[in-house]
């Protein structure tokens, strides 16, 4: 079945059609097909799918939230402005300041936008109707990585010069022969490993989380029957709840890690860390 309905509805629908344990039909295991979506409409070869819609909704949520919170700011904050200030100060004190200090405050808009955009895209996984983390499609993660990496390189070259930036990758005081030995390691880490893991970490966590949640939700319905299956279903349901709670933390943690690493990258570009 294609992805025009959510995995949960798909599982429930199939199992609801008599596909339960001991009824002779196999478990409708979720898989990659649950991450593929039938386009709502197409323009040429380009299809407008559910993840695209959710990414736009996530962007709108962030824009509207901060616009409403700060459209007429008061000295003594009330209502939405309070929430907005808590959100901004949270990112400033927990992500920006620890890496960049006060001199990095000019990067606050970037980090706040990045954090909340990623967080809302992640948390779509847990919201009924949406029920899909946009970041579990890696195509939505790479542009964010490119933006961060482009900025990282640009600031590094701007502040330290192209040669100085490359030279500062290896700490001073290393003997020349060792320096030569370390160059391939540093280049590969900097240009391949670091951007690759920045993207894959976010994608992998959200992909695996969504798959786990789908498996246990579908399994609960599949195992439900007037037999010992009821006991299995209860176990699966408990695990689904456990994964759900775990995912509420993972969605936040992954947004936090991505933004914290962005802040440390910017910090290392602004000045040599050694």
């Amino acid at each position, binding site marked *: 079945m294609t992805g025009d309905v959510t995995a949960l509805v798909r599982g429930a629908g199939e199992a609801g059609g008599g596909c339960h344990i001991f009824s002779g039909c196999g478990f409708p295991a979720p898989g990659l097909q649950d991450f593929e979506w039938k386009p709502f409409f197409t323009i040429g070869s380009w299809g407008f799918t559910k993840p695209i819609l959710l990414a736009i909704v996530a962007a709108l949520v962030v824009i509207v939230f901060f616009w409403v919170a700060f459209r007429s700011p008061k000295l003594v904050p009330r209502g939405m402005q309070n929430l907005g200030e808590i959100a901004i100060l949270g990112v400033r*004190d*927990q*992500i920006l*300041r*620890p*890496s960049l200090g006060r001199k990095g405050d000019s990067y606050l808009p970037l980090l706040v936008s990045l954090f909340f955009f990623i967080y809302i895209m992640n948390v779509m996984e847990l919201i009924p109707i949406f029920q899909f983390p946009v970041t579990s499609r890696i195509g939505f993660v790479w542009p964010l990585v490119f933006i961060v990496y482009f900025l990282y390189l640009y600031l590094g070259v701007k502040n330290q010069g192209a040669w100085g930036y490359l030279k500062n990758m290896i*700490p001073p*005081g*290393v003997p020349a022969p060792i320096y030569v*030995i*370390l160059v*391939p*390691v*540093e*280049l*590969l*880490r900097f240009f*391949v*490993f*670091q951007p690759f*893991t920045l993207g894959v970490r976010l994608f992998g966590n959200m992909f695996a989380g969504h798959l786990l949640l789908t498996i246990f939700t579908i399994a609960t319905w599949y195992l439900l029957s007037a037999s010992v299956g009821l006991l299995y279903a209860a176990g699966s349901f408990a695990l689904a709840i456990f994964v759900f709670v775990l995912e509420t933390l993972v969605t936040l943690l992954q947004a936090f*890690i991505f933004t*914290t*690493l962005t*802040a*440390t990258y910017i910090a290392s570009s602004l000045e040599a860390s*050694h």
Partner: protein
Amino acid sequence: MTEKGNRPVTKREAAAENRAKGLDIGWMVSGYLISGMLAYGLIGWLIGRAVHVSLLLPVGMLVGLAISIGYIIYRFGVQEAKKEMTGDR
């Protein structure tokens, strides 16, 4: 509380700083381990292809791993200890 600039650093700020630093160092260390193996594995494979010795790929990977471990000990052990002693952090 310790001093930072003109103002004292709270425990909460120090914890946040340590968390950011720990996250950065953690990923840097794993980055060095994998990049070392890949970089020297690739070099070993290229040389091995030229001289028809397939054993140079695993040898290169082990050499890369050894270089990475040595570098990690130097950068995050020896150098950090020096910085702590001189107070240059």
